């Protein structure tokens, strides 16, 4: 299995190179001027030009890109325009809060989603099923930011159950995790439900029942084992989406993560930081996909040759 993962990783390299090109192009195509922003409102034209020269922004694009690529290969993400410190130093302290939020949200979504999906499938069209289906549909369709704002007002201000900002304890993570996890939860619940329904209708299940095995034994041993692979797939898919919506969640809750850094960097046109962040997102995303595929292959060797 390891060689397979390695092969996927190697296949991802050209994609990553293309990613750097794309990121570079996109960032430079965005209208706006970082040099102007840095020079301030009292700046004369020569001040702005000086800053531009100092940041290397007046060189032709291909030279800038090659310089950028060369630095990346050496592991150097460049220097942030706004702080004149290494981009890696700007990004590093924000990685853990983002990971923390993503883990919390996805754990919540995965556990609750899988659990409710399975329970709903066990009694289709019953009242549990209806509740689960409705709530999961709501989770998918409610706008993330709206949910965040409502939660903040309700839990932090009105009922004062959790602090309104900050990080550190599980109480701080609750609201952002629910906000970010709502959509993945809904999707995982629905997918799990329909997959579980299919599994339950398969012959070997009926055979087990016919043999007289207790229902919960059947469910636990046989059905769940067949759910493992799909579950891994569902959760894996959702993590990537969650990374994107983390941007909105972090903005609403002032969560000091990578998503907020991205928005802030874009506002001030801090090209090196933007490039570093998007590259990081893409690399993580690709790595996640490789890992999820690897886990899927490990769980169910049959998929190894499919797709």
């Amino acid at each position, binding site marked *: 299995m390891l060689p397979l993962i390695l092969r996927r990783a190697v296949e991802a390299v050209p994609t990553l190179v293309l990613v750097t090109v794309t990121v570079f192009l996109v960032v430079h195509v965005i209208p706006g001027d970082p040099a102007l922003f840095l020079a301030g409102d*009292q*700046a004369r034209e020569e*001040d702005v030009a000086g800053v531009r020269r100092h940041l290397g922004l007046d060189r032709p694009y291909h030279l800038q890109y090659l310089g950028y690529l060369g630095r990346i290969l050496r592991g150097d993400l460049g220097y942030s325009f706004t*702080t004149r410190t290494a981009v890696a130093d700007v990004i590093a302290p924000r990685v853990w809060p983002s990971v923390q939020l993503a883990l919390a949200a996805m754990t919540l979504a995965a556990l609750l989603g899988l659990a409710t999906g399975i329970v709903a499938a066990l009694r289709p069209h019953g009242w549990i099923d209806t509740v689960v289906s409705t709530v999961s549909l709501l989770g998918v369709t409610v706008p993330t930011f709206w949910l965040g704002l409502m939660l903040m007002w309700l839990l932090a*201000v009105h009922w004062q159950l959790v602090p*309104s900002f900050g990080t550190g304890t599980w109480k701080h993570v609750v609201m952002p995790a629910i906000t970010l996890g709502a959509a993945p939860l809904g999707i995982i619940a629905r997918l799990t439900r329909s997959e579980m329904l299919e599994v339950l209708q398969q012959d070997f299940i009926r055979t087990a029942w016919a043999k007289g095995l207790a229902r919960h034994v059947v469910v636990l041993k046989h059905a769940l084992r067949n759910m493992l692979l799909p579950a891994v797939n569902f959760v894996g898919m959702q993590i990537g989406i969650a990374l994107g919506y983390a941007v909105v969640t972090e*903005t*609403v809750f002032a969560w*000091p993560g990578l998503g907020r850094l991205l928005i802030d960097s874009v506002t001030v046109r801090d090209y090196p930081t933007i490039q570093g962040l998007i590259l990081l997102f893409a690399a993580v995303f690709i790595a996640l996909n490789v890992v999820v595929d690897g886990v899927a292959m490990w769980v169910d060797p049959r998929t190894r040759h499919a797709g």
Partner: protein
Amino acid sequence: MRRSLSEWRRGALGLTVLAFLVMAGGPAVAQAPKPGGQANVAFSARLETLNPPLINTSLGARIAQHMFETLTTVDDDGRVRPLLAERWAASPDGLTWTFTLRRGVRFHDGTPFNAQAVVANFNHVLDPNLKYGRAGEYPVLKRTEAVDEHTVRFHLSQPWGPFPAYLTRPFAGAQVSPAAIAKGPEFLARNPVGTGPFKLEKFVPGQELLVARNDAYWGKKPYLDRLRFVMIPEAGAREAALQAGDVHLAVPLPPQFERTVSGNPALQWRADRGSRLVYVGINMFRPEFQDFRIRQAMDLAIDRDAILANFLRGLGRKPRSYVQSVAFGFLPVSEYPFDPARAAALLKEAGWTKGKDGILEKAAGEKFPQIVFRVFQGRVIGDLQAAQAVAGYLQEVGFPVVLRQLEHNVHFAEAQKPENKTPQAISQLSLASIGNSVMDGSHTLKLFDFRRPIADAAFSWYHEQDVWPYVDTMLQQSDPAVRLEAIRAAQKLMVPKSVWLPLYEVDQTAGVSKALKGLKVGMDEGYWLWEAWLDK
């Protein structure tokens, strides 16, 4: 156990007397500042670095000014006062300024504050190798010289009257320890070594700043042990934090929170006069804007009272000039009345009448060119809403205005484009705002001097020469009486031309916990907690 009625009455009387005593003596007792404690502040600006030339927001700079100090400071009357410098004087030709520094001051790392330190600071900010871009703050500063331990001499290429006022701006004027400067920008970003009443304890860029009292401070030591500044970009979240008791001060808070903050007995709403003027710049290169009657009509068509009453909930001031009402030299030139009828009459005089489709047209059928009104959102309270209102008012009298909302950075960059200085520029209005940290009328009026174009002037590019003599006087003379004359004359000249359409001067609004006392609020977003204390 039963008591007799008279016993109850005596008890009640005693209690009442006691209550009166407490209340009479109460205020006196409660007013003595209690040392100790940590105050928490929620603010909106993004603070990524503590290297003063790289701080990009006023609010961020004010927070940094709890750790850094400048040579001079401005008080609420607009007068320049000594801070790290004790006194100063200009040479007769105005090209040399000599400052005498305060003695006995040390930076947080123990390095003494002296003339050599000041020289190191100015050389650092203006260093051509670092290209901080803040060199534009002191365009005429040629050289800084340490005459002796406590005397600094600034050599200018041109006389500059308001020079001491500009030294109050922290971006280029904050004094940083030379030992820290020597360690370079990477060190400076996270290590603010200043002379101020607080020193760094912990800084998490983009998230929070924790500072502790500087017990070696040369001036009056703060009461608070610690100050924690937390960055919360969402106004609703800041207010939530204040309501929940997680912070003692939430700044800024938009006007609509006045009701909820005032409704909480533990909180207090603060509205203080600010120095930020929001205005609409008219691109003076466009042919259709050359006729001053057209511009005046625009001025008359806008109902500023309604804007103030509605978006700002009265928390602002109607402008009277192009200079903020709190700045030195302010002259209330215009009432800025709302008179759409007179606007229509002026337009008619200029040959434009409102056509059947509601758009101004000339008798021959030529229509008024479409005007792009560039606006941004979220920089100043009420900006986008006021802009939408203005667009509506202008459309009412027939101007074909179309809004173009841009990110602030893009908006700024659009205005700088060279083609805006030609008649072929897109017909445009620009929303803009300008503060006045130096509290001097020249700060806004110098934008009309086309010989000294700076970024902020790009929203209107007024290029006539009639204002130049006044600008020269106000910038180069140091005698306040002479400068005052020039500033006033410039206003009398420019305001009737309606080159700018001032909209409002915004108040600074915030929410404070009643437990936080001693908060000092200065204009240009100065929320100072140097003398604050917690009453618990």
